[in-house]
């Protein structure tokens, strides 16, 4: 019990989110009879305060104090959790603001949606902190259930329902496979604690049996990060979900999935080998497994994205491809790979949410998510076109923008680890990716629009949002400073335990 009490100060961001959740639920009940706009403003305000509170406390906690295990070794409050917490908070804040401007969510009571957003943000933090098999499963399942509900939030919309149902079915199968894998791992090692798993695996070789178990568990994690071949849900769910929810799914759960992946493989299935490197234990070659996943995911995501005509589907396949790029960094087997993933995610947050912000703002006037509907956008709104250009060039990894930095971190880590062939496949994929990103820009700038052109008007919130998302992408080099802080902190990851 005293252990739980001692853990509470290190648990502050999650506590703030849970408090905000309770307030939102009660406030939603109390304002049921009020006009919709008043009630929505109040609830948005409470949620924003909760998320900003969590962001501030998690930013302060970043790098402050020694790594420590919380709640009887359920969570590890170390550099990895420290880096991921602000990423989750920022994602949720941007998604909340996008939700206020989304046409799809206008006139809809948002109480439950905001409660779900707060819950899922806290659950992402639990995922990133888990060092116990039970905690990994439970936090992952909390994120999943909340995501299913967010995807199906527009229950009068047939596409939204269909997406939610598909998501549930795929989710049930992959978490089922993962749970079965975890139970077999528990049977092999006799412990639920990741450090205990590592110790038990170091003693005996389990070989191919362990590899099969790891494939089962990779199915659950791969589902969360949308890695092929566990990605089938992704395009349909991204298309059917309300766009702010799509934006959230493309960053939040993906980031948390990578945190779980790093913890599970780097802590539970490997031991420190000096100099920040790690060596797999238990006699299963999971590095090969991750490399195969990375190559399949990147290639499939990029090639399928070439064929898309719907911008949400395009961004779905592009997010699969980005997951593949980050998986490359996970094959590095050293702390350098972890740093590359953390840096990539921090930048990916701004570029991908930025692209979705443009999609949502454009949808307000065009009412469509087809790429063709963007024809002649340059004349309608140079501002939005330039913003989209910056986000897409950043996603491509073109030098002056932050996306280049992200790719550079990953490729440097991969080449330093002597995986030159993997880097070559990655570069080829980046070249393919340039095609479909440029295609969107070509439609916006060169193609002539057909039909009438409603004027584009931005609110102050839109402009603020665009500025917040554009600036980190443009000033990539100035961003370097805070990235150094991020990578410095993730050094502590492999020291705990």
């Amino acid at each position, binding site marked *: 019990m005293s252990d739980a009490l001692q853990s509470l100060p290190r648990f502050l961001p999650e506590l703030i989110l849970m408090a905000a959740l309770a307030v939102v639920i009660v406030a939603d009940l109390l304002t049921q009879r009020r006009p919709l706009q008043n009630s929505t403003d109040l609830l948005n305000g409470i949620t924003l305060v909760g998320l900003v509170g969590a962001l501030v406390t998690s930013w302060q906690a970043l790098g402050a104090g020694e790594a420590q295990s919380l709640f*009887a070794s359920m969570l590890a409050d170390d550099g990895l959790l420290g880096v991921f917490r602000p990423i989750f908070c920022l994602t949720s804040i941007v998604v909340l603001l996008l939700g206020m401007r989304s046409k799809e969510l206008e006139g809809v009571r948002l109480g439950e949606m905001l*409660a779900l957003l707060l819950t899922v943000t806290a659950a992402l933090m639990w995922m990133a902190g888990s060092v116990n098999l039970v905690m990994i499963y439970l936090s992952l399942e909390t994120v999943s259930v909340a995501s299913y509900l967010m995807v199906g939030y527009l229950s009068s919309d047939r596409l939204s329902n269909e997406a939610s149902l598909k998501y549930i079915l795929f989710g049930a199968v992959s978490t089922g496979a993962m749970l079965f894998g975890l139970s077999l791992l528990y049977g092999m090692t006799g412990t639920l604690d990741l450090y205990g798993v590592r110790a038990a695996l170091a003693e005996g070789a389990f070989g191919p049996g362990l590899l099969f178990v790891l494939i089962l568990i990779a199915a659950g994690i791969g589902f969360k990060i949308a890695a092929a071949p566990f990605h089938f849900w992704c395009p349909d769910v991204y298309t059917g979900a309300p766009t702010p929810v799509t934006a959230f799914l493309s960053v939040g759960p993906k980031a948390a999935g990578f945190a779980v992946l790093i913890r599970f493989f780097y802590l539970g299935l490997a031991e420190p080998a000096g100099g920040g490197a790690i060596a797999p234990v238990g006699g299963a070659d999971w590095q090969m497994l991750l490399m195969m996943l990375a190559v399949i995911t990147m290639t499939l995501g990029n090639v399928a994205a070439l064929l898309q005509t719907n911008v949400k589907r395009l961004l779905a396949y592009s997010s699969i491809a980005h997951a593949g790029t980050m998986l490359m960094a996970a094959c590095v087997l050293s702390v350098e790979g972890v740093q590359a993933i953390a840096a990539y995610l921090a930048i990916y947050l701004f570029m991908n949410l930025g692209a979705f912000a443009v999609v949502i703002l454009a949808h307000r006037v065009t009412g469509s998510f087809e790429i063709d509907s963007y024809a002649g956008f340059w004349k309608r709104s140079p501002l939005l076109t330039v913003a989209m250009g910056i986000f897409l060039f950043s996603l491509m990894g073109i030098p002056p923008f932050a996306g280049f930095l992200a790719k550079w971190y990953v490729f440097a880590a991969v080449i330093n680890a002597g995986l030159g062939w993997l880097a070559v496949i990655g570069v080829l994929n980046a070249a393919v990716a340039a095609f479909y990103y440029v295609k969107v820009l070509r439609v916006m700038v060169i193609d002539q629009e057909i039909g009438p052109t409603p004027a584009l008007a931005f609110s102050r919130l839109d402009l603020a949002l665009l500025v917040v998302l554009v600036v980190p992408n443009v000033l990539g080099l100035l961003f370097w400073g805070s990235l150094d802080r991020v990578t410095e902190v993730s050094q502590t990851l492999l020291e705990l335990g």
Partner: protein
Amino acid sequence: MESMASAAIFYGVAVLVLGSALYVVVGKNLVHSAFALVAAFFGVAVFYVYLGADFLAGAQVLIYVGGILTLLLFGVMLTNRIYNLNLRSGAIQVVPGALSAGLVFALLVWIIQSVDWGAMDAGDPGPTSESIGRLLVGDYLLPFEIASVLLLIALMGAAMLVRRRGSGSS
């Protein structure tokens, strides 16, 4: 002699669980399938007894057989035209499905045979509820609390979906 009888009961229950679970999947009548599920859940409770997990066995009967299944049956029975419903339970891609299922089964059998599970004799089974209770408010306090958050949003979500459908507006 005693172990013979014990083994006979075990395998009898195993056949019951597998058979009724299979019926749930392939059965064409929803009500019959629901009743077959009762038998499957009950058989699993017997397995828990075999493993000396008295609390789990009780919880299995109370929650799955008593709670969830009763609700399921009510849902089925209160739905109109349930008997006319033509259930389509998969007959597409039988061969690839059977092949992959057989492959996974063979793999699992092989793994279960080849891995040293470190099994040990648990001795005489004693009551487990006290130690479970202590663990839930001790070492496993955080998972216990997170489970309650999960249940809270699941409850909210269920209410949200049902209410929206009922009112017919968004």
